[in-house]
Structures are given as C-alpha cells and as structure tokens.
C-alpha cells in the first residue's frame, strides 16, 4: 500500500528556471508533510515541511504547496542551481518519527 507516491522518477530543468516536484498521498490522516534531498553516499537531508493545516510554506528558494482536496503537494525550487541536482523524497507523518516516504524523484539541473 503506497500511501505516498511520486510518479515522476526523474526531472531535468535548466539552471535558473523553476523546478516543480510533485507528490500525491492517499492517507488523509497525515499531520505533516516533509521534503528530503539525498545525494549519493549520503543520508537524506531535511529541506522543508508543511503542516496539514497550512497550504503553503516558504523557505528561501524552496516553497511547498499543499492541496488537501486533491491530496497533492508540490515543491518549487526557484531559481534552480546545479547543486540542487539530487534525489528528492516527499514524506508524510503523524507528528512522530515514523516517516512514510515516496519513491523519490531524481532532479537534474542542466547548466
């Protein structure tokens, strides 16, 4: 039962443009949604989170949008930089340490 889905395994974006990564979920009981970034040979690194009672959270170049009626969230990165090339995971949780991750999207920023 895949409660968190990332349907795009990969995405390529020109440097300086906007990167939009999408995530869908089925469990409406999630309290929080989080985005993690993972480089090869490293553990995932927290990027940004959003409470289920919010519809937007912004932190620098990163903005997460939550559409609860559609059970969809997206991560916007503006402007995209070469260092943003990594695998991005979205995850849901119930206010505890048990994160339910999606399968990830590999983002490649083209110089």
């Amino acid at each position, binding site marked *: 039962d895949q409660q*968190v889905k*990332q349907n795009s395994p990969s995405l390529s974006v020109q440097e300086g443009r906007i990167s939009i990564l999408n995530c869908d979920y089925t469990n409406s009981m999630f*309290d*929080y949604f*989080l985005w*993690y970034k993972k480089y090869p*040979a*490293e*553990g*995932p*690194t*927290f990027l940004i*989170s959003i*409470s289920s009672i919010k519809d937007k959270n912004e932190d620098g170049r990163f903005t997460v949008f939550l559409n609860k009626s559609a059970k969809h969230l997206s991560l916007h990165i503006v402007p995209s930089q070469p260092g943003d090339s990594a695998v991005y*995971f979205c*995850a849901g*949780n119930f*206010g*505890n*340490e*048990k*994160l*339910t*991750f*999606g*399968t*990830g999207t590999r983002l490649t920023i083209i110089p």
Partner: protein
Amino acid sequence: DAGVTQSPTHLIKTRGQQVTLRCSPISGHKSVSWYQQVLGQGPQFIFQYYEKEERGRGNFPDRFSARQFPNYSSELNVNALLLGDSALYLCASSLAPGAASTDTQYFGPGTRLTVL
C-alpha cells in the same frame, strides 16, 4: 559537531547469517529511528527508540530487532538474512519524539548491506 554516524559503511553477508548495524546519534539527541531503503524505493520505517524504549515499529518480521543504549546509541540486528534484506540501512536521530515533524530528523550516511 559530528553528525549521525553509522558503522560499518558496507557489509557483505550470506543467506542465513546474522548482522548487527550500529548508529551513534547527534550529541543531545535521544530519539533514534531505523529505515531500510531498497534500491529504487524510498526509505521504509523499521523502528523508533526513545530513552531506550521502543516507541514505534514498522511492518517488518521478527527477524528484525533493535535496542538503544544509555548513551542513546543504537543497534539494529537482523537474523536469518534473506536475499531481500539487501538494502541501505539508514539511522536517523532527533531531539525527542515529534521533533521530526517541524524540526529536522538527521540521517546518517547509512550501511549498505549485501546478502549473497
């Protein structure tokens, strides 16, 4: 400050063997969680420990067990290894339960386990 450390980095075992993976959390962090990441998938929750007690368990068989020590470090044990146990095992630490939602849960680099 040192981040989350895990040992060993890589490990090769054969089917039926037992393995112990180790994790040291960030200083001051009392909550440790374990995840399994199979190739091409996202990390899947195995266990969470806080103050040496199990606080959460994922959908894994009893072959998987863990414990947390008084210094908050943790071990993950897997018995009777199967080929399907081949994965990257990630450890994560946070200050306390619930901190992962709005704060950060810091992950270690993982232990790559290969079962032949």
